[in-house]
């Protein structure tokens, strides 16, 4: 069974790449807006269907549409954020809970809307990348790397690096980090919290929608697909530390590796149990996530 270890590790890393794409922007938006957006899976689903239809209508590879999808959904997120901001900045009741309920309601509404608009069948997005794989047998390793999953990992790393650059090397990023640390103080220093929040939410929705296209190429798409990804996004972000962006890739890779190794070497039916057991143990030891840097 040990000969399967290289493949198990490879599969785990590739699966981790998928989880990075789902969770990284979700973590960013939590860090800035302090809202757990339960509609993350639905943004992924909308992006997936947009890619599906663009491919169907034009016949072009869905990966070519990623920039278009990002711009389109950035706009959607930018326009929706002020509504969420209004819910979160209320003075009566508990704005945090209201934010949760609001995004939860959005998720249910989006799911119903998708069911009506896209129908109830599962679909798949064809891509040239879905066809091939890299076989490492000539190198003496019994490892196969599906091209589309490798593209997924590259996409995950690219998004992570771009976000890192944006946050650490630009004035906009400085404003975002200031906002994440202390909203009022950032405001006093000249950061426009409303506009910056809208940009961040737009970036998050845009990245989530692009992720949908990727997932549609690797797995499948359907009007109800979002729920599963919301759970995993939430899981990764909690494990990484709420709002701690740098922890997301490590948490995602850990999750992917646990899942892969457990599926191969232990009882696959208990995979999710193992994943959640690890989450609970880590949170017991370090309640602020893997690196103790979450909110």
């Amino acid at each position, binding site marked *: 069974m040990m000969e399967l270890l290289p493949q198990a590790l490879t599969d785990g890393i590739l*699966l981790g790449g998928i989880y990075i794409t789902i969770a990284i922007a979700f973590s960013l938006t939590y860090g800035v807006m302090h809202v757990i957006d339960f509609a993350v899976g639905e943004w992924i689903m909308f992006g997936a269907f947009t890619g599906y239809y663009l491919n169907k209508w034009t016949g072009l590879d869905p990966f070519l549409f990623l920039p278009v999808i990002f711009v389109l959904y950035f706009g959607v997120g930018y326009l929706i954020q002020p509504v969420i901001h209004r819910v979160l900045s209320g003075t009566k009741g508990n704005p945090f809970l209201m934010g949760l309920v609001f995004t939860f309601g959005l998720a249910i509404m989006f799911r*119903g809307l998708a069911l009506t608009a896209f129908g*109830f069948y599962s*679909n798949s997005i064809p891509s040239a990348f879905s066809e091939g794989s890299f076989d490492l047998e000539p190198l003496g390793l019994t490892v196969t790397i599906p091209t589309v999953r490798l593209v997924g990992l590259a996409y995950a790393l690219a998004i992570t690096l771009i976000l890192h650059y944006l946050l650490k090397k630009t004035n906009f990023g400085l404003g975002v980090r200031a906002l994440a640390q202390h909203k009022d103080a950032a405001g006093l220093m000249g950061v426009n919290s409303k506009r910056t929040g809208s940009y961040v939410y737009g970036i998050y929705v845009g990245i989530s929608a692009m992720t949908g296209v990727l997932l549609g190429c690797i797995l499948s798409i359907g009007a109800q697909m979002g729920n*599963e990804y919301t759970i995993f996004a939430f899981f990764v972000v909690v494990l990484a530390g709420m709002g701690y962006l740098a922890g997301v890739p490590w948490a995602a890779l850990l999750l992917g590796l646990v899942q892969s190794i457990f*599926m191969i070497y232990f009882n696959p039916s208990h*995979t999710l149990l193992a994943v959640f057991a690890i989450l609970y143990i880590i949170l017991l030891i370090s309640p602020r996530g893997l690196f103790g840097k979450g909110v």
Partner: protein
Amino acid sequence: MKFGFVRVLLLIAALFVAIPVHAEQRNFFKIGVITELSGDLVTGGNITKRGYDLWAQEVNAKGGIEIQGKKYPVKLVYADAQSNPAAGAAAAERLITQEKVDFILGPYSSGVTLAVAPVVDKYKIPMITGSAESPLIWKNKFKYTFGTIPPINFTGATSIKTLTELKPAPKTIAIIGSNDAFSKATAESYKAAAEKAKLKIVKFSIVPSGQDMTPLLSAVRSMKPDVIAFGGHDEEHVKFVKALKQIGYTPKALLMHCGITDKAFIDAVGKDGDQIFGTTCWTGTAKTKSKVLWPNAAAYAAASQKAFNNPGDYTQGGCSAAGIAFQTALQKIGAKPGMDEATRTKLIQALEQIDVQTFYGRVKFATSGEFYHANVGLDPLTIQIQGGHVKTVGPKASVEAAAIYPMKEWKSR
């Protein structure tokens, strides 16, 4: 204080006592439909809805169900089980106590059916599920629950037998099932049939529903099984085929369950769906003859194509056949809308006695044994997708086309 405690106890007791279902006078049959119209199983739920709708549409187009010279139309009242057994049970309570339905057409999934069956037993309301296939439903011997699709342990063995008759005969098999009542039962029935056929089982795994199975399939690939058999639902079928293709492993035969007979599966996976085997009990080309509503399978498929732009699959057909079974039993006992408990009991007896030829084939419910109240009138079929069409490749008496075996490599398609 003591009085208050007694009052609470009385209140709790009142909640647990079944509210008597009173008959309502009306000139149409009010039929409750519980199915999964949202949630993970929304595809199957909507396919069952189509089956029930098509039956109701056809019955009403003919003026209704004729009872003693008078025609009574049917009206379907839907309740969403949300792909959740508890929500299904709550929906059944509502349909029975508030909507006061005459009888129920049951859920898509076995899990929800298992939650609804005790509720219909409690209120003594007959239910036929046109879809659920888990053997657990029938082993529980629910008096008021029937099913038109044979249980998977009745049908699953046929496909394994067909595969073992291919040349060169497969010797090894890996079996994977998703962790829900139906899919798990499918995997277990394949396992039992493979053991009986002396196929070497190199892997048997039950995986959490909806998960990415690539790591598991990578492990399976290293065992190089001749056959891979999978029990799951529509979305999982798509993911499964894509994962196998991504890791570059083509078994000699890939066997999945009936869900692959729906045109939507073939559309989703395209040429990769070709040569996949499946287990079913009905196709649009099945040789059936009937005097009720549709004369044969082809006529039903044409009606479905016209109504939904889809010829329908075995689940949809099973649901329409469930309506026909009720219709036949109602006519047999001359039951009119707004049935009382005594009439509903007679309806159960009539359902146990019916033996009717439908477009779906023979409907005859077992009255004892492990298949109690499941339809045992049908012959299971092994199908294979060939050139985008579903073809029956076994058993020998039903063959439409020779099986293509071994499967063509993914990369050379």
